[in-house]
C-alpha cells in the first residue's frame, strides 16, 4: 500500500526524522491560511500517489498568500497522470546546500533489504544510477541482524562525508531503515534528502510503500486500507474486496483465469491470435471458489466493452467442481449475454465436467483452441 507524502512524513516525525514544517489542506482558502502561518516562501505539493508529479507540474513554489490561493486553486483542478489532486501539502521551502538520495528497498535477487544512497539526489537520480553507477552507494543488509550503526557510517564514508555530517547522515539512514522495518516496507525513500546550511539533514520528500501481505499486523492502517482510491479504480477495489486481482485493459475480450502466470500466458495467446483483452481477473489467490468465480463474472462483465469472455482454469489448489458450480449459478442468476468460452482441467475435473454438462454448458480442454475460439467469437 502506497502512503501519501503527508502520511509518510507523519511517520517520519514519529521517528524524529526531520521534515519541513507544513500543513495538509483541501481548499485554496486553507492553502492561503497555511501559507500565512508559515510566513515565508513555501512549496505547494500535490498529494498524489503516481510518480513523476514534479515533472508534471504538481509541485510549485509560492512567495505570497495570493499566489498560494491562486496556484493551489489551479492544482486542485489538475489531474496528474490521471490522478485528481484532492489534497495539497503546503510546506516551508528549505534552503539546501545539496540534495541527497537515501532509499531502502527489497532486493529480490539477493533476498534482503538494500540501502541505496547518493549525494546526487533529485529527480534525475535514476539517470545518475544508470550512467554513473559508482555514484550510488549500495549496501545489502543481513535480514536477521538488520542494519548496524557502523554499516550506516560505512555508507556515509563511501559518499565522502566526514565529521559531524557523517554522523548525522548515518543517524538519518538508520532512522529511515528503522521506519522500513517497523512498517514492513517494500520501499522507504527520501529524494531529495536536503543537507541544510546548518549541516543537518531534512527529508524534503518521503515515500513509504507497505507490503500488502503484512497489513494484517498493522492495525493502525485498517481504516486507511478502505480508502485506496488513489492507487486503484473503483472496480479494482471491488475486486480486491472479493480476493480477486483485476486489471483493466483496452481490448474487447474478458479473461478470467487462475494464477498470474496462466492469466498472463492467456493474454499473450489471445494477442498471438489477433485479439485483445478488455481486462483480466485472476481468481486464483488461495483457490478459486464458487463465490469467487461468481464475483469474477460480475466484475469482468461490468466492463461494457467485453464482447466475449474466456474462462481459463487449470486447477491445482482450485477445484474444478467449485468453478463449475460458480459458472452454473452465475448463468442462472444473471444470464450470459456475451459468448463465453470455457477451458477447464485439473483437480476434481470429472466432477466439474459433470456439473457443466448437466447444465448444458460446453467447454474445451485446450488453451490454444480456447484462445482461437474466443478471438473468433469476439468478432461476432
Amino acid at each position: 500500500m502506497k502512503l501519501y507524502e503527508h502520511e509518510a512524513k507523519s511517520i517520519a516525525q514519529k521517528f524524529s526524522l526531520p521534515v519541513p514544517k507544513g500543513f495538509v489542506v483541501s481548499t485554496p482558502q486553507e492553502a492561503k491560511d497555511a501559507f500565512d502561518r508559515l510566513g515565508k516562501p513555501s512549496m505547494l505539493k500535490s498529494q498524489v500517489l503516481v510518480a513523476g508529479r514534479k515533472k508534471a507540474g504538481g509541485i510549485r513554489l509560492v512567495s505570497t498568500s495570493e499566489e498560494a490561493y491562486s496556484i493551489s486553486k489551479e492544482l486542485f483542478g489538475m489531474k496528474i497522470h490521471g490522478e485528481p489532486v484532492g489534497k495539497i501539502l503546503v510546506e516551508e521551502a528549505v534552503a539546501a546546500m545539496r540534495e541527497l538520495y537515501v532509499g531502502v528497498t527489497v532486493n529480490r535477487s539477493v533476498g534482503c533489504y538494500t540501502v541505496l544512497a547518493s549525494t546526487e539526489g533529485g529527480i534525475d537520480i535514476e539517470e545518475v544510477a544508470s550512467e554513473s553507477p559508482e555514484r550510488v552507494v549500495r549496501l545489502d543488509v543481513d535480514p536477521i541482524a538488520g542494519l548496524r550503526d557502523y554499516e550506516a557510517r560505512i555508507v556515509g564514508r563511501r559518499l565522502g562525508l566526514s565529521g559531524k555530517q557523517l554522523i548525522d547522515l548515518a543517524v538519518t539512514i538508520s532512522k529511515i531503515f528503522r521506519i522500513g522495518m517497523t512498517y514492513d516496507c517494500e520501499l522507504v525513500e527520501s529524494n531529495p534528502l536536503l543537507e541544510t546550511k546548518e549541516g543537518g539533514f531534512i527529508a524534503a520528500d518521503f515515500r513509504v510503500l507497505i507490503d500488502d501481505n503484512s497489513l494484517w499486523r498493522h492495525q493502525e492502517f485498517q481504516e486507511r486500507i478502505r480508502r485506496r482510491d488513489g492507487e486503484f479504480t473503483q472496480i479494482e477495489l471491488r475486486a480486491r474486496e472479493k480476493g480477486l486481482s483485476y486489471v483493466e485493459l483496452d481490448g474487447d475480450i474478458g479473461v478470467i483465469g487462475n494464477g498470474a502466470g496462466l492469466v498472463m500466458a492467456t493474454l499473450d495467446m489471445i494477442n498471438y491470435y489477433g485479439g485483445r483483452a478488455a481486462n483480466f481477473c485472476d481468481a486464483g489467490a488461495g483457490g478459486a471458489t464458487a463465490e469467487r468465480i461468481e464475483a469474477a463474472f460480475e466484475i469482468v462483465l461490468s466492463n461494457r466493452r467485453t464482447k466475449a469472455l474466456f474462462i481459463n482454469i487449470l486447477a491445482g489448489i482450485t477445484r474444478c467442481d467449485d468453478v463449475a458450480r460458480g459458472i452454473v449459478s452465475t448463468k442462472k442468476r444473471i444470464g450470459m449475454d456475451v459468448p463465453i468460452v470455457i477451458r477447464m482441467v485439473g483437480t476434481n475435473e470429472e466432477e466439474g465436467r459433470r456439473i457443466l454438462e448437466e447444465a448444458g454448458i460446453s467447454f474445451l480442454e485446450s488453451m490454444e483452441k480456447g484462445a482461437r475460439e474466443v478471438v473468433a467469437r469476439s468478432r461476432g
Partner: protein
Amino acid sequence: MAVLVGENTKVLVQGITGSQGEFHTKLMLEYGTKIVAGTSPGKGGASICGVPVYDTVAEAAEAHKVDASIVFVPAPFAKDAALEAIGSGISPVVIITEGIPIRDTMEIRAVAHERKIHLIGPNTPGIIAPDECKLGIMPAHVFSKGKVGLVSRSGTLTYEIAAALTNSGLGETTCVGIGGDPIVGLGFIDFLELFAADEETKAVVLIGEIGGNAEENAAEYIKATAYPKPVAAYVAGRTAPPGRRMGHAGAIISGRTGTAASKIEALRGAGVHVAEKPTDVARVLSSLVGK
C-alpha cells in the same frame, strides 16, 4: 532419479488439520507420497487420513524418520512453522502458503541458507517426481515419469506445460515451482545445477514471467557454464501491462531488466530455445531430445 525428492522420501505435513492441509494430505497419500506425520499446535494426538498429528515438529521428527516437510500453515504463522522445520534440520522444506510478508520470507530464507536447508517457495505448488513423490498441490494426472526437468515461477503454467510434455511422451523427471513471490528459496540456478547433475534428466524447461531478474540471471548462468543439456523456456507477460513502479529505488536496482523482452533476449542469447506459446514448449523439446 528425481532431484530433492523420490519414492523413499518420508514427509511431514505442517498445518495438516487445516482445510487445505487435510485436502492435499489425502491427495498426496493417494498419489503414493509417504506421509509419516503431521503437525498442528494444540491438536497433538489427533489423526488425519490415518496420519498421526503432533503438536511440535520436534516430537514428529523424534517419533518418525522425516526427510521433507510441506507447510500449509496460514500466512501469519507460516514463518514460525517454516523456522520450526528448518530448526529440526529437515530438508527440503516446501512452503505452499500464499501471502507471507516479504520480510518474513527474507528471514526464513536467510536461516535456511545458514543451516544449508533446501527451501522451496513460498507461494509454490511444490515439487513432484512423477510416480514417486508428490510434495505439493499440483493436479497429479498431468505428470508422467520421463526425461525432462521443469522449473517454473508459475503454478498453473507449470501444469499447462507439464501436461503437454506428458502428452508428447517426453515425460518429466522432476517438476518444481520455485514460488511466485518476489523473494523465494531455491531459484532457477539452483535447479539448473541439480538437473545438470541428474543423469535421467535429458533436457530442462524453464518457465518465467515478467518482473525481477531471475530469468536474466539464469541466462547468464547457462551461458557462463556452457550448460550441458538443452534448455527450452517460456516467458509469460509479453502483453501484460507494466507492474507498478517501486519508487526510484526499484528502478535503480532492476535497471533495464524485468520485461518479457529483456528476459527473452537474455535467454536466447544464452542459446535457450524460447517458445512463442506455452503449448509450443513440448514441440520444441521433442525436436531437441527426440523421444
